[in-house]
């Protein structure tokens, strides 16, 4: 049976039968794969601890007809173990993992998403920035990689140079007075500045931002994400803002 070996991040796990789990992995080279971890729920399992959400592992699987099977794992970075020690970091990590699962397709290489997710989880575990800011930066960039980058400056419809007052989620972000659809939001200029900083990785601006603008920005990011993913994210409701 064909086997493969790759670096991977565990996106999610689902119980299967008495003691197995289906493990969804984002691998570096192959993209997303789903594999069965046999016996991993038994406390004596040799690799149960490694096949948990947000763990970065070196994994070996053999291919099956519908599901692959995990045969070996080595730990590269047990990020999940650190992230689970706080409810904020665990919730933010869960939203990242769920988003990544939704933005990637099985067996379609997604190296950029892999690197972004690994970086974001590492940053979250490092506890240097507000976990919710790290989350929003991740969400904006993950959407950008998927081709849904919102505009925070120029008009998303006609390209007229910004800044513009109006912001429209369906319209793609900032919109000029001529393109502005009815019902557009009018967020604070600082909020758009914060989101733009998060998208480009300008942490000096992001860290100095006001809680009010963080909350408003988080609302816009959430609305953007929900609009592009046809079903809502379950974990996003759990984030306390």
């Amino acid at each position: 049976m064909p086997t493969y070996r790759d670096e991977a991040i565990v996106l999610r796990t689902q119980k299967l039968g008495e003691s197995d789990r289906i493990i969804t992995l984002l691998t570096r080279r192959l993209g997303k794969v789903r594999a069965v971890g046999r016996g991993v729920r038994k406390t004596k399992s040799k690799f149960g601890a490694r096949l948990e959400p947000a763990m970065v592992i070196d994994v070996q699987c053999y291919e099956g007809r519908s599901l692959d099977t995990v045969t070996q794992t080595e730990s590269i970075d047990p990020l999940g173990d650190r992230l689970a020690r706080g409810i904020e970091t665990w919730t933010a990590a869960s939203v990242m993992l769920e988003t990544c699962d939704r933005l990637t397709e099985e067996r379609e290489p997604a190296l950029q998403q892999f690197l972004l997710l690994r970086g974001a989880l590492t940053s979250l575990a490092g506890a240097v920035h507000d976990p919710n800011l790290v989350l929003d930066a991740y969400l904006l960039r993950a959407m950008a990689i998927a081709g849904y980058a919102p505009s925070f400056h120029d008009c998303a419809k006609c390209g007229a140079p910004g800044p513009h007052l109006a912001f429209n989620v369906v319209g793609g972000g900032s919109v000029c007075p001529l393109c502005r659809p009815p019902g557009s939001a009018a967020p604070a200029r600082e909020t758009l500045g914060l989101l733009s900083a998060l998208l480009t990785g300008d942490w000096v601006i992001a860290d100095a931002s006001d809680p009010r603008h963080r909350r408003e920005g988080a609302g816009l990011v959430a609305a953007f994400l929900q609009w592009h993913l046809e079903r809502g994210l379950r974990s996003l409701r759990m984030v306390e803002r």
Partner: protein
Amino acid sequence: MYEGAVQDLIDELGRLPGVGPKGAQRIAFHLLQADPQDVERLSDVLLAVKEKVRYCERCFNVAESQLCRVCADQRRDQSAICVVEEPKDVVAIERTREFRGTYHVLGGAISPIDGIGPGDLRFTELMTRLASGEVTEVIIATDPNLEGEATAAYLSRFLKGMDLKVTRLASGLPVGGDLEYADEVTLGRAFEGRTLVHV
């Protein structure tokens, strides 16, 4: 696909946790060939479990009256509460015969990805029990996986500042194994939770 009743049975069995389509078919045909009395007994207990069994008003363990067997037992130490995720964890701990206190069943673990947050678990009910002042020790016994870890982290922060002794089950090495085969997470936890032999 089979005809009517047989297929209905296979469908119902297939909805049970841990039963796949093949297993459902196997159980269905086993039941078809079984003695009528055996099947009747099975259907009786299935109905009885829904009729008689409810949740303990105090700890949310499964119970046949207002209180579960543990809560109703006067000899149990009411000053210690062991917090677990599910009723089956109560059974597992009871089997050790190590613990003489009472339990509190949360009803699951914090799992944002499944849409389960602290508000969906019985933390408020635990607070109400602690408010009586009778309890002096809380033992956190959530599952040794990351959801259990997140739940324990939440709970321990919740309990901080209260006049309580809060302990947590040690995560350690499986008895009967070789140290070299332990994964780094388990081994790391075992180091964290090492116990004093002498100074």
